[in-house]
């Protein structure tokens, strides 16, 4: 089984405001804001990343182990994929 990589949609452009990343979603007029770990993950998704890589990046930056954040990161990716904000490729 080849590992799934995630890449953010290139047309989604974000701006920073009050420490948050704000972007319009793929639907007209629908906006999202990301902060903290979510904002950091979004920055890392500018190139194809696997779940493992993303967990390692979070563990480098935050006081958490890759193992402990895995469920949260996976749920976040699933959420982004459901909103068509990332492309998942196997």
């Amino acid at each position, binding site marked *: 089984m080849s590992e799934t990589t995630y890449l953010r949609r290139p*047309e989604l*452009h*974000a*701006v*920073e*405001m*009050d420490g*948050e990343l*704000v*972007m*319009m979603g793929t639907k*007209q*007029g*629908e*906006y*999202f*804001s990301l902060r903290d770990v979510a904002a950091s993950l979004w920055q890392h998704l500018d190139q194809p990343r696997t779940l493992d890589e993303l967990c390692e990046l979070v563990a480098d930056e935050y006081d958490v182990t890759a193992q402990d954040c895995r469920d949260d990161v996976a749920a976040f990716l699933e959420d982004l994929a459901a909103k068509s904000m990332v492309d998942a490729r196997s």
Partner: protein
Amino acid sequence: MTDGPDGGMRHYACYGLHLASELPIDELDPVAEPRDAADVVVTRAQLAGPPAGASALPHDMWHLDDRCGFGIEGVGRYEIRAGREILVDPAPGAARRTIRLYLLGTALGALMAQRGHLVLHGNAVRIGDACAVVLGHSGAGKSTLAAEFSRRGLDIFSDDVVPVTSEGLALPGSPRIKLWADALEGLGVATDGLQRVDRRHDKFQLPIRRHPVTPLPLRWIYVLERSTTPELAIEPVHGATCYALLHEHTYRNELIHGAEAVRSHLEQCGRLLSGVRMSRVNRPADTMTPDATADAIIADIDATAPDMAPEQRASEESVPA
């Protein structure tokens, strides 16, 4: 049918631009001595509708590169090019004031967006050396509120369409407010002698008196909303909500089409929001009055502009008649 005996151009000022127009535009301020080159040229043309390859947008609008256009049944077709040109193809027998209504509204709004401005659907009012913008959907009471501000001696910047530059400056438009007959009645203004917006609507052009106005920094944005609560309340908004509200109240937001336009709109909003306090004005539907809303907004402005004395709010000199 031609406008102007010599077919010559007429010259006007609006939003700080010099417009040369083949069509007379009574609603704008004429310019006595036009400069050599106009910023914007309005001409009559034969328009066939969307060109090949154009993206179709809602409300019969289309977009292609630096051009966009739209058609209104029984009124005519309009095309706006590169922030410099507006072409108008009137429908046979269309009323001139209705043709101008769309020229000054959608067409000029789209042109200002092409010129790189964030074009908001609202009214701007001068507050000292800055200004506040009131946003809201059609029928929310923006124009009635603008008339109330004007009655209190504040200078109204523009009605319905407020272009904001990338430096966050609101640009002054024509000194008129479009009001429904019942709103005028509520304000105690007789409709005799006022020009109708067009023959199909019970809406009138109310000329307003104001000081000469120049572009001013936008400091406050208020969004008029209906609420089910009994009391009128002003609630500050933050983060993504600001963007969603600005998108919702961007004039003809159908035209924010394609990744590049979305990116540029987002950046315009971001720049604007860095210097602006944005709030929702939640108004109970059955008891709201322009007077109470104006009081609440002025009180909020006073509370959030501690360095400004209340008397600085209103204009110091008297309004020239």
